[in-house]
């Protein structure tokens, strides 16, 4: 017999000790955070100004999977995520009641027109036409990002009567104005995102039957995300 076991046993013991410490560090989870106060403030302000909460959701709230996405209308990765993942997802799993999609605005300060685009999208959401305006904004991102003419593409996405309604709601929402009623909703979304925390856009948080998964960021193809959803639905 050689002395092999006597040489490796202490080494393995040390290794397993290190491993235990690492595993314990991982198992520790900080407590759940409270809902942001700004969200409550936004709802109160909306009620005060006669606005309802803009509907920026797709599908049935009773769907087993919920996807909260934090997006910036002017960010190219958000556009890729919308075109390559969210759009096919809406046509498939959202339409079939498997996924409930919730849009949250997270305009980044480095994008000159993204906050204004979010205002237009929220105004459209106020009359239930968020989906059309979101599609128009992402489809024409390069054009309006260059000149800031968002109104042109919102007008193109809506019927003349709906556009008039949205224009009316957008009174006081000029690019440098601070009295836009939709800012409270956008700020509430930003505050919620900061709690996640959102560090880049797009960021998405997936929940399955109330169990929340850690946030992901960056564009992911629909095929790969669908495989993840299928593994959840197959549990």
């Amino acid at each position: 017999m050689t002395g092999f076991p006597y040489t490796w046993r202490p080494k393995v013991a040390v290794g397993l000790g290190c491993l235990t410490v690492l595993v314990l560090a991982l198992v520790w989870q900080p407590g759940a955070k409270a809902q942001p106060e700004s969200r409550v403030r936004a709802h109160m302000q909306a009620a005060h100004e006669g606005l309802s909460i803009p509907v920026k959701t797709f599908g049935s709230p009773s769907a087993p999977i919920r996807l909260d996405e934090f997006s910036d209308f002017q960010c190219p990765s958000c556009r890729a995520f919308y075109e390559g993942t969210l759009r096919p997802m809406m046509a498939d799993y959202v339409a079939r009641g498997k996924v409930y999609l919730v849009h949250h605005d997270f305009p980044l300060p480095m994008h000159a027109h993204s906050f204004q685009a979010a205002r237009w999208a929220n105004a459209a959401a106020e009359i239930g036409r968020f989906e059309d305006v979101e599609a128009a904004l992402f489809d024409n991102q390069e054009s309006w990002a260059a000149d800031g003419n968002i109104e042109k593409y919102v007008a193109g996405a809506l019927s003349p009567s709906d556009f008039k309604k949205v224009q009316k709601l957008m009174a006081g929402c000029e690019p440098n104005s601070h009295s836009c009623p939709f800012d409270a909703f956008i700020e509430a979304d930003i505050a919620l995102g900061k709690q996640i925390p959102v560090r880049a856009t797009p960021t998405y948080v997936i929940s399955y039957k109330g169990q929340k998964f850690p946030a992901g960021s960056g564009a992911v193809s629909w095929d790969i995300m669908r495989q993840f959803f299928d593994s959840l639905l197959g549990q």
Partner: protein
Amino acid sequence: MTGEKRFGLGRILLLLGRLVLAGIFIFAAYAKMKPQTEVPWSVASVRTSLAMFAMQVDSYQLLPTGYVSLAAHLLPPAELLLGFWLLSGIGLRFSALATTLLVGLFFAVIVRTYAMGLEINCGCFGPGEQLGKITLVRDGSFLGLALAVTIGAFLVHRAGRNKMEARVSVTDAQRAD
């Protein structure tokens, strides 16, 4: 310091280095495969975690969609295997070399992603970690450590062989006397 003492210190450093590397790899595999929500461990929970890891692999925009899932399902078990191989100390030169190659590959991918300006999750130790400068420094340190362990493993092996040969030649000389 005598040659014998230096050799002993080298062996201790090598042991520490390989245990740290083994811990990193086993932890990385564990973090990717563990249930990401409060559900118990099961085959289904591991499958779900690996499917989630596939989304992180995909966000690197490096592999065609068909290979993303394959890579995501092979990588964590490979890390686990490599971690236990390092822990065992068996064939250390080869396990350390394999580790260096794998860490080198990870580092190259991370540098490329950072240079491209992609703001994604690293996925290195499970979900939730944003890829940034800290990731670069950390993975660069891991690469340095893996290289040091590999070089150390080869040096210790050569020193051990030289010692053995010296003993054999002394014994042969004594026999000849």
